[in-house]
């Protein structure tokens, strides 16, 4: 949701946003309308994409996506990728700041201090309530 709120800032830098999960389209339509998301939500019900991207967690709920943020350049090459966790999330503002640097950004492995990474995240009560209702 933080990323979606910053969608215009990403677009101003030339990047669009999309989110992918293994959920079915009906569920995503409902979630998108309920939360008011603007970015497209992609459905990988066959799990082919998450397996192909090596972001498949087979141990939970019959197989779901591993949380991750990936930036793909206009040339089709991966420019940034980071795996996240339930309590470690990448902040949209930090990725925006990194993307706003003059092209080309320094490779993240060579400048670890200058590149965004996931930080501790404490979900709010609404997130806890949603999780408990599942």
């Amino acid at each position, binding site marked *: 949701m933080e*990323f979606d709120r910053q969608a215009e800032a*990403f*677009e101003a*830098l*030339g*990047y*669009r*946003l*999309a*989110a*992918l*999960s*293994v*959920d079915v*389209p009906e*569920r*995503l*339509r409902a*979630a*998108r309308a309920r*939360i008011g998301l603007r970015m*497209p*939500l*992609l*459905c*990988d*019900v066959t799990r082919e*994409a*998450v397996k*192909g*991207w*090596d*972001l498949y*967690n087979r141990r*939970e*709920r019959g197989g*779901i*996506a*591993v*949380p*991750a*943020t*990936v*930036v*793909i*350049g*206009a040339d*089709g*090459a*991966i*420019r*940034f*990728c980071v*795996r996240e966790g339930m309590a470690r999330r990448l902040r949209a503002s930090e*990725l925006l700041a990194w993307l706003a640097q003059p092209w080309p950004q320094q*490779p*993240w*492995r060579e400048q670890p201090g200058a590149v965004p990474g996931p930080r501790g995240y404490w979900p709010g009560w609404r997130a806890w309530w*949603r999780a408990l209702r*599942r």
Partner: protein
Amino acid sequence: MMRVGEAAPALRVLDQEERERTLTELAGPRGLVLLFYRGYW
């Protein structure tokens, strides 16, 4: 896990409206930020 500099794997999936989408079509002039998430909202 894919590495920076590698070509992104192909992606051809449906969106919430059940339209087929690809990386090329989803990307802006400089690229795409693709968020993988656990789902089951």
